[in-house]
């Protein structure tokens, strides 16, 4: 699978066009965001806290109204994974994973089978009858993923799913999620604060500015899938994370200005090509 070339051939599963969001209190959360995600593409968005990344996902799923622009997506085929696993504590793992199929009134036999498959896929076999209180944070997240997998959504939205999980577990969950992506070829849109996580998982990384959130840079990640943890320690990986880091530095500019910091972005150069790090940035940061 070579994502960049496939991308243009497959019609996008999720398209944002000039999307804006202004909250009733006047907060300008998102400004003219335009991008699309095709099946088999995994796009990460990284940016300062409170820059409207989560709002983007909420608009995509219909949880929040949009103020301007359009979204093109099949709302019946969205999987949405929150930062919190949001498992129902009174249901066992099995019953939690069955929830969505149950809410969509699938036949009883299907519900059981879909749940069993998803549980097997995320490696929770043997934990079916445990209540969430006896699971670790990583296992809860796996159960949450399994729950979303049962309906085989074409579009997967991830709102910092591993934000509260320790780094070792996080790396493992990254690999597992990447394998699920390779297997199911959904269109993934992933919000994170971790540059390394974004680069490791994604076909593309988008950098969003501080509020009002705009997409100010875009990076293609050329590594083939399935990826291994070892790519994290290659020079190419370091170059891309460096570039993302530079763009992110710029994204924080308005915030830094507010704190009176005049230091300019420390640009990294690509040790192989000698190009300036931020060369991949969209012209003028999208217009």
């Amino acid at each position, binding site marked *: 699978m070579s994502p960049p070339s496939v991308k243009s051939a497959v019609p996008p599963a999720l398209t944002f066009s000039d999307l804006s969001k202004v909250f009733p209190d006047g907060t300008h959360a998102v400004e003219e965001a335009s991008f699309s995600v095709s099946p088999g593409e995994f796009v990460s968005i990284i940016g300062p806290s409170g820059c409207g990344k989560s709002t983007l996902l909420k608009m995509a799923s219909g*949880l929040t109204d949009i103020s301007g622009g359009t979204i093109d997506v099949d709302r019946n085929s*969205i999987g*949405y994974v*929150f930062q919190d696993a949001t498992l*129902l*504590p*009174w249901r066992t793992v099995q019953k939690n994973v069955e929830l969505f199929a149950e*809410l969509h009134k699938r036949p009883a036999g299907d519900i059981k089978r879909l749940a069993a498959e998803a549980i097997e896929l995320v490696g929770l076999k043997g934990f079916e009858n445990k209540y969430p209180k006896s699971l670790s944070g990583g296992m809860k997240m796996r159960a949450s993923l399994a729950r979303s997998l049962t309906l085989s959504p074409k579009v997967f939205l991830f709102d910092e799913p591993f934000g509260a999980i320790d780094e070792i577990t996080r790396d493992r969950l990254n690999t597992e999620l990447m394998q699920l992506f390779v297997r199911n070829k959904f269109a993934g849109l992933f919000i994170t604060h971790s540059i390394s996580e974004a680069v490791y998982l994604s076909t593309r990384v988008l950098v969003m500015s501080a509020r009002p959130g705009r997409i100010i840079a875009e990076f293609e990640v050329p590594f083939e899938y399935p990826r291994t943890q070892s790519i994290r320690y290659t020079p190419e990986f370091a170059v891309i994370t460096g570039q993302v880091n530079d763009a992110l530095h710029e994204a924080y500019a308005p915030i830094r200005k507010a704190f009176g910091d005049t230091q300019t972005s420390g640009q990294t150069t690509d040790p192989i090509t000698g190009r300036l790090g931020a060369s991949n940035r969209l012209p003028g940061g999208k217009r």
Partner: protein
Amino acid sequence: MTTQLVNDIFIEQAAVTAPQTPKKRFDAIGVLGPLTVFGLFLALWYGGRLLLKPYKRFVLPPPHRIFTQGFGDKIVREKILAATWLDVQVAVVGLGIAIILGMFIAIVMAQSRTLERSFYPYFVALQAIPILTISPLIGSILGYAKSPRIFVTVIITIFPIIANTLFGLRGVEDGYHDLFTLHGVGRWRRLLTLQLPAASPSIFTGFRISAGLAVIGAIVGDVFYRQGDAGLGLLVDVYNSRLRGPATWACIITAAALGLIFFGFFSVLKGKFVDVWNETKS
């Protein structure tokens, strides 16, 4: 010798780590502590009654007489049994009505802030009315037999049920609601699959409080409404006025036991249906 010692150490360690469910050790403090306090209490009782003027000592009969002349007396025993059965009926029916009505009211109020804001102050006010002040009115309307006693029980027990159910239903985190919204779940289904189970720890807390109050309600009702069969409240009053200390105390102990049984029943239910999954113990 040394080997033997080493072995012993290992065996001991194995014994400590091996059993998955540790054997319940005899809980010395948990058993001996309360027993000691009970002993002290009895001593105080036997001693304390001697401080009373002789003609008042009927109030504190020697504890053993509660069993010989109270529970031991066949007529007293039969009267207490009949009265207890009556109070159980009043408490169960009253609590049942309060649970059904109270949960219904809470569920309705949980549907809209407007409804909640309009009605809730009146339930708080209902809770604040001293039952003594309206008991004559209740009697004038419902008579003086069993139904006013049930009514009093309902009034005393309904508020904790409304308040705790509402608190539980309202307390469901936004993330869960988002989850259900994403899947197009309607009001009714959301109530049954999300809100009620999520509220159940709080609902059971309300049940437990109200269960204890139900017994109090039934007995208070006995004292006010004296027509028909006597409940424990009336029986206590009658025995006390006849200076029958042991019989009076037999009634008091029975009433206390009844309250504990009601409370215990809902504690057991809570343990069975809530504590198995609930992370925060209450």
